[in-house]
């Protein structure tokens, strides 16, 4: 076969190559075993050892600008900062935000949402809602990426759900 033409004699012997390969794999295995064991007792050698993240026990550090699960920010009294201006609803290219506004008792707040739903099954995580918000009421800094559910209805996050979500940094 044409492909075999470039092989040397030793390579054609087959077994020596197998042994070489086993040795390489074995050395990685034992070195990693050693390094991981050292990590267990707190010794960490820089640039050495496996880079695989052992999800879900271990989590990757997220980039600060990553757009993760939305959350609604709160005023000091815990009520939503959102004034129901519908800017996010308007700008949303996926039409996945549904807001219903009502009159607030405090005329200085005047307007607030009594319904604020985000259908995450439809959301495209473009972040336009965050950009459009004039009062910094919606953010995508929760750091939460795993919110799969068993039903489509559960993918719709309601006002109270969104208010409860904490930012990634606060979680530590």
């Amino acid at each position, binding site marked *: 076969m044409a492909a075999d033409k470039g092989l040397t004699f030793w390579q054609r012997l087959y077994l020596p190559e197998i042994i070489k390969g086993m040795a390489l794999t074995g050395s990685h295995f034992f070195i990693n075993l050693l390094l991981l064991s050292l990590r267990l007792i707190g010794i960490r050698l820089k640039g050495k050892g496996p880079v695989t993240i052992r999800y879900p026990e271990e989590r990757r550090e997220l980039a600060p600008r990553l757009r993760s699960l939305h959350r609604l920010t709160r005023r000091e009294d815990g009520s939503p900062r959102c004034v129901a201006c519908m800017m996010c609803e308007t700008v949303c290219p996926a039409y996945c935000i549904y807001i219903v506004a009502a009159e607030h008792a405090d005329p*200085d707040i005047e307007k607030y949402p009594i319904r604020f739903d985000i259908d995450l099954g439809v959301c495209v995580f473009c972040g336009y809602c965050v950009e459009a918000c004039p009062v910094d009421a919606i953010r995508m800094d929760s750091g939460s990426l795993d919110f799969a559910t068993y039903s489509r209805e559960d993918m719709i996050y309601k006002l109270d759900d969104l208010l409860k979500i904490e930012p990634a940094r606060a979680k530590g």
Partner: protein
Amino acid sequence: MPTVTIDGQQIGVPEGTTIIQAAEMLDIHIPRYCYHPGLSIAGSCRMCLVQVEKTPKLQIACYTPVSEGMAVHTNTEQVVKARQAILEFLLLNHPVDCPVCDQAGECWLQEYYMEYGLYDSALLEDKVRKRKAVILGPHIVLDTERCILCSRCLRFCDEITKTHELGIFERGDRSEIWLYPGKVLDNKYCGNVADICPVGSLTDRDFRFICRVWYLEDVNSICPCCSTGCNIIVDYNLKRPHAAKGRRLMRLRPRYNPEVNKWWMCDEGRYGFKFVDASDRILDPARKENDKLKPIPWEEALGRVARAIRALVDEGRQEQIGIITSRWSTNEELYMARRLFVEQLGVKGLDHRVPGNIVGQDDGFLIRADKSPNSKGAELIAVHHPEGMDATQIVQAASQGKIKLLYVLHHDLAEAFGNKLIQKVSQNTELLVYQGTNFNQTSDQADVVLPAAAWPEKEGTFTNYAGRVQKINEAFAPPGRAWPDGKIFVELASRLGAPFRYICAEDIFREMADRVEPFKGMSYSSLGLTGSLVSSQGE
């Protein structure tokens, strides 16, 4: 006829024309806030300052009359600078709370800011705080911080309604629009002040917070709440069905027609559309079964009505058929009813004159006592047979069993004649058909109910009290399985062996204009935006 040159364009205008009016004739828009063509000149906002040659100071275009040989410049550097300065002053103590303001999107401050805004605020100090979200009356909310004190609202209350509810109190930058002691803004036209308010200071309580204006689509129409036929714009929202619990019709606004309503409309008409999206809309054709209405297919409902009519006609018992047509129907629908029932089937018991449409008195301005939009059309199209019975006689006859089939359009007979009589009608007729938009006591008694489209759900024309034929247009489709009256007639006619060959409302109008004398020579295109008068105005 002085001749004036504005931005290099010459125009001859009548004596007394102001610069702003002359510019409008040349399609030059001069920014303004306090100027409103329907109100007196306040000259206070100073936004319309323009440069007049040989005059050292800038002049306000709304107040300065043109004179022979006058040369005006509306866009020089000096003028633009003045506009920027005025806008800066207007926004100085304005809260700039556009996110919560209903006017956002149709606010004149936003509008002109795009062109004349300075963008970087030079104000470091606190803004003047004033009262917010004050309820002035049943329809209007006031935000005095957003107010630019153009005084349009108080001039409206002084000059148009002459009710004098509003005044400007305090001085300087503490000035506030407020109610005079003991007054409430509850005149019959107060909704207009929200329209003419160029900013978000006066907003409509009915529309407040339910929908952003940029979600709205609009269509020109005619107010159906009385025989004046005020020209209106129907603002509706279909894109965001979660807003206002699915309400489609969001608000009505007056549309300028110098011959009818000028710039205004009354509150009765403005808020009289709630039945359109009400929960009692009839959504399905239905027949009564064990005293309950059971939804049925159109085919079955129409078949039942058609068979009953056919049977009576075939037996020559046309006098046992009664049809109550409606003053709320369009000219086209009324004409079809006449064509089908009177001309084709020879029914004599057909009339629209159900009592109860006269409420109160004409107010001498826009509100008329006749609360139906098309009484004149119904008269002109002669939907009642000259030798036939009137509506009252038809209902009486039906209650006595002399009429076996009563077909009622839109009218709540129970309200007009009393529920007892209608119960008797129901018992003594073989078939009581109710065709309408909403359930009522009459529909409760009916054997067959046919769901009809409301006025923003169909196309056609109304003829107002003065004989002005004006066009209504479809904003959105009827809910559920409802159909426009015209379509129901077309379907019924084909089942009665007298098929109509109309494809659209315009076809009907064309034929009617051909055959009904007062409408001679009219067409949809000749009606235009402001309508036209029928040829012989009297009876």
